[in-house]
C-alpha cells in the first residue's frame, strides 16, 4: 500500500509538474518577466509594499537563480516539489476513498483546484511582482485557512452521511470570504492593469489544467496499482 501510494504520488506529481512547467514557460513566466521590467524601471526599491507592511525586507545579496535556463530549472524543480506534495495528499485520501474509475480523478482534481486556487484567488487574486499587498504572514495565514476550510467543506458536502453534517460544509466554504482576505490600504501595481488581468487568467487556467492532469493521473495510477495487487493475490 505504501509503495503504491508513493508510486502514485511520484509519477502523477512528475507528470503534472511537467505540464505545468510547459504551460508556465509558454504563458505565465513571460508575463512575470514583463512585470519585472516595470519593476526594475521603477526608481524605488525592487518590490513595492503597502504602508505598514515594510517589516519584511529583501536581502539583495541573497542568491537567486540567473535569468534563463537556471531560473527555468529552479521553477521546474519547485513545481515538482509542490506537485508531489499535492499528489501525496490526493493519494493519501485515495487510501480512504479509492476512486473506482480514472475519470473520478477529474472530480478530485476539480476539488483540489477549488480548494487551492479558486477559493484563495477570490480574496487574493494571482499577483504579478510589483503589486502592493498586505502583510505577507497575514496573507499566508488567510490562504492556508481558506484552502483548509474549502477542502474540509467540500469533503463534508461530498462524503458526510448525515444531512446536518453535509450542511455544515456550506458555512465552512463561506467563512473565509465573510472574514475577508487581508488587503493593502491602496491597491496599486507597477505593471499595467491589463497585464495583471492577463496574469490572473494565465495563472488560473494553467493551474486548472495542472489539477485536471494531477487528478486524472493519480486516480489512474492508484486504481491500476489496486488492480495489480488484486490480481497478484
Amino acid at each position, binding site marked *: 500500500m505504501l509503495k503504491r501510494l508513493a508510486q502514485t504520488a511520484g509519477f502523477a506529481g512528475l507528470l503534472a509538474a511537467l505540464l505545468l512547467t510547459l504551460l508556465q514557460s509558454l504563458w505565465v513566466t513571460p508575463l512575470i518577466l514583463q512585470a519585472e521590467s516595470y519593476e526594475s524601471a521603477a526608481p524605488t526599491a525592487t518590490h513595492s509594499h503597502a504602508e505598514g507592511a515594510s517589516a519584511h525586507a529583501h536581502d539583495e545579496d541573497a542568491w537567486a537563480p540567473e535569468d534563463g535556463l537556471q531560473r527555468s530549472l529552479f521553477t521546474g524543480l519547485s513545481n515538482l516539489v509542490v506537485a508531489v506534495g499535492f499528489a501525496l495528499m490526493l493519494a493519501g485520501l485515495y487510501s480512504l476513498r479509492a476512486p473506482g474509475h480514472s475519470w473520478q480523478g477529474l472530480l478530485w482534481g476539480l476539488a483540489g483546484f477549488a480548494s487551492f486556487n479558486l477559493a484563495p484567488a477570490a480574496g*487574493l487574486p494571482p499577483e504579478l511582482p510589483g503589486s502592493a499587498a498586505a502583510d505577507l504572514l497575514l496573507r*499566508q495565514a488567510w490562504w492556508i485557512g481558506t484552502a483548509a476550510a474549502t477542502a474540509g467543506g467540500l469533503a463534508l458536502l461530498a462524503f458526510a452521511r448525515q444531512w446536518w453534517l453535509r450542511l455544515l460544509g456550506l458555512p465552512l466554504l463561506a467563512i473565509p470570504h465573510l472574514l475577508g482576505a487581508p488587503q493593502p490600504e491602496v491597491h496599486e501595481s507597477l505593471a499595467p492593469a491589463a497585464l495583471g488581468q492577463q496574469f490572473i487568467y494565465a495563472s488560473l487556467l494553467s493551474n486548472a489544467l495542472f489539477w485536471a492532469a494531477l487528478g486524472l493521473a493519480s486516480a489512474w495510477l492508484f486504481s491500476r496499482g489496486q488492480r495489480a495487487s488484486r490480481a497478484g493475490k
Partner: protein
Amino acid sequence: MSTSTLSPSPSLALPLSQRLLLALGSCLLGAALIYCAGFAPMEIVHNAAHDSRHSAAFPCH
C-alpha cells in the same frame, strides 16, 4: 460529487485505522513539501521558487 460515485473500494486490505494513519501521514508530508517550496520565508528558497509561487498564486513578497 456524490457518495455513490466515490464509494470506498471493498478490496482495500488495510483496516480503517491504518488507512486513516496513512492518509493523515501523507497529507502532512505533502503539506510540508508545499510549505517548503511555496511558503518558506528563507530568501534563497523564495528566490529559487519565485516564479512557481507567483504562478500558483501563493502569497509572495
